[in-house]
């Protein structure tokens, strides 16, 4: 068998995997978890040099195309899984050809939507997931990426300060264009709506959906959320010359949604009485970029917002409004954030990401303070949280399988 491995940073340990076996029959010793999910292809999670990788069996040309597409998406900083490589030229022991494998890195602390629904649920989980997916879809569309198969199954979710951040997992049907037509965007939205409804109906049939949630109503939310966000990010706004404050107001609203405005087109009509503005280039990550600059912490957007708020209160509480922001941020990191996140015992470290843990502790402190009728110090909050809340949380660092049935639709025609 003449294997052909394409990878940007190849790991020789790749050669030790049983490429001569169909992925479906890989022995358990190689796997990080038992096979799960409703992928239309065979997918397995394997352990390799201390990492977890997702391996998908798929035709070679499609594998290479998806690998390259994921590389491009990573380069343009769209949230998606990181491609690891493609293994092609596989044959079994009798020399029969086997499909190629696309390998991606498992995204730490990410959760498939089904895992979220099989845990005890917080109210509104489905709507929060759809909100996250709407943000992802808008970002993809702004980059000219037409997904072609938008669904909850093709997305991974990371906790983000009570909300979720969505990552694209499956780029097999995707195409990158200069920009998308309205028809392409609508088609993606329609696919999203139908797929989400199907996925929610399936959860309902399995008894996993929150009571009182209507699958069809909830799936429609992808359209409204997407449209609101798209209009805010790209819409043309007209106002009288005297209302110039509306330029700042628009930028503030976009920042609030987590976007920076890189380019804003401003024009006036010919007699100069009305002004029109339209954002031309927007960048996601308004808060996370600011936090990264101040502290070096690389976290999700809502987590960043939460951490920046805490940093602001720290600044106010220590009466250092006139000090350099970077210096205060450094102190906050050293005196508050790091000691708090380091308090977690090692055996509970796989439960939550540090930034999400910090967010939870802030929440916890709020409830404690409310009960006590006065402000509680964060040190008390983390002690109480670690003692009473954290132990019951599941490990989420590498959730790769939940209890569903694997069912590739493409299978041998054994009955016709």
């Amino acid at each position, binding site marked *: 068998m003449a294997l052909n491995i394409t990878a940007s940073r190849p790991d020789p340990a790749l050669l030790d995997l049983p490429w001569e076996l169909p992925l479906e029959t890989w022995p358990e010793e190689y796997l990080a978890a038992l096979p799960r999910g409703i992928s*239309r292809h065979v997918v397995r999670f394997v352990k390799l040099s201390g990492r977890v990788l997702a391996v998908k069996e798929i035709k070679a040309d499609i594998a290479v195309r998806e690998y390259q597409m994921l590389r491009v998406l990573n380069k343009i900083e769209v949230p998606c899984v990181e491609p690891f490589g493609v293994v092609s030229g596989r044959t079994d022991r009798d020399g029969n050809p086997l499909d190629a494998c696309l390998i991606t890195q498992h995204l730490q602390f990410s959760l498939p939507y089904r895992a979220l629904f099989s845990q005890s649920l917080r109210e509104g989980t489905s709507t929060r997931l759809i909100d996250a997916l709407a943000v992802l879809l808008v970002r993809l569309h702004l980059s000219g990426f037409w997904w072609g198969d938008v669904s909850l199954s093709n997305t991974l979710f990371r906790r983000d300060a009570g909300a979720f951040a969505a990552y694209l997992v499956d780029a097999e049907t995707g195409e990158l264009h200069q920009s998308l*037509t309205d028809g*392409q965007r609508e088609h993606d939205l329609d696919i999203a709506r139908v797929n989400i409804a199907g996925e929610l109906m399936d959860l309902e049939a399995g008894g996993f959906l929150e009571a009182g949630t209507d699958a069809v109503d909830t799936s429609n939310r992808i359209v409204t959320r997407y449209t609101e966000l798209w209009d805010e990010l790209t819409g043309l706004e007209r106002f009288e010359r005297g209302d110039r404050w509306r330029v700042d107001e628009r930028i503030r609203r976009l920042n609030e949604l987590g976007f920076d405005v890189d380019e804003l087109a401003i024009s006036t009509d010919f007699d100069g009485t009305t002004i029109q503005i339209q954002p031309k280039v927007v960048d996601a990550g308004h808060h996370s970029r600011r936090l990264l600059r101040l502290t070096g912490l690389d976290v999700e957007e809502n987590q960043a917002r939460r951490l920046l708020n805490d940093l602001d209160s720290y600044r106010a509480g220590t009466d250092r409004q006139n000090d350099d922001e970077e210096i205060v941020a450094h102190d906050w990191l050293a005196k508050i954030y790091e000691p708090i996140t380091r308090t977690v015992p090692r055996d509970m470290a796989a439960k939550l990401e540090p930034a999400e843990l910090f967010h939870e502790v802030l929440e916890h402190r709020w409830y404690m303070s409310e009960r006590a009728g006065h402000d509680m110090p964060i040190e008390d909050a983390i002690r109480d949280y670690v003692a009473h809340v954290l132990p019951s949380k599941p490990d989420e660092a590498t959730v790769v399988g939940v209890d569903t049935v694997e*069912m590739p639709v*493409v299978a041998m025609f054994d009955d016709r």
Partner: protein
Amino acid sequence: MATVKFDEATRLYPGNDKPSVDKLNIDIEDGEFLVLVGPSGCGKSTSLRMLAGLEEVNAGKIWIGDRDVTNLSPKDRDVAMVFQNYALYPHMTVADNMGFALKIAGVDKGEIRKRVEEAAKILDLTPYLERKPKALSGGQRQRVAMGRAIVRSPQVFLMDEPLSNLDAKLRVQTRTQIASLQRRLGVTTVYVTHDQVEAMTMGDRVAVLKDGILQQCDSPRRMYDHPNNVFVAGFIGSPAMNLLEVESTDGGVLVGDSTVAVERDRLAGASGKGLTLGVRPEDLELRTDGHGIAVTVDVVEELGADAYIYGSTKAAQHVDEEDSDAPEKPFIARVDGRRPPAKGETVYLAPKTGHVHLFDAQSGLRLGD
């Protein structure tokens, strides 16, 4: 069900100076299975997406039935893009897996049930409607996935290379299945593929595109027997037609050392800038008199009843439309499988009477009938 009409439909991408689809005219009949085929970049997918509403139409119009859909959004066109690969939902019954999209569309329960049952009958899935997909075989699951598109009973099915991620064997099986299903349903279908064999075996008619321009739209038979130009001649058929640069001579054209008879009026439309002769591998005969096209046999492919010989000839320059830098195409002939020539042997071949195609070398257009 409906007719589909591309009326001078044109797609020009911003920044390009040549349209990706240039003044496309095709009339598709109600219930017809039309295949768009051509090499990559020919505009076939773009054409399909213009019909689906995913690509803008910069000039011309597209009609579905008597509706001008040129500027309608995709969901208002009553077309269904059919994917071969849906995920099935494990907790839902087969009936629910097929009908859930109708529920989203607000169709009432009785109507959903009716349409699901009708589709199940066509797909031989009736006994399985109340089962979970897990209990089905692979082929049945695939049919459930098709059922999902069928129950929507759109006016037009659109399929964009739906078989591209299947292996060769499955592709052949699924291709037959789609074609027979389409005939049973009678729904107008537009199907895109790069594979001319797929196109020829599936379509009622085949439309060949190249560089955004429609080359020919005909039944597979007509396309094979009567290619309108050199490109179609070389693209349709497997193994491909032999295309040779030839010169006219008294009473016909000169191939090797012999004259192939061609009626004088067939050459009337020629530009005088050279001729291309096309002859399909099965339209060649072995000659024993040492005349004709001398071919040195490089490879013999034995298929039982027939054998194909792949060889080279100095008798005439092979015409290669696509890429002049590509290695020269072999000269191919079908011979009797029981007495094939040996590798290395030189054989003499001549076209059977009445089975040559003639093209103007400059315009590439067919000469005569």
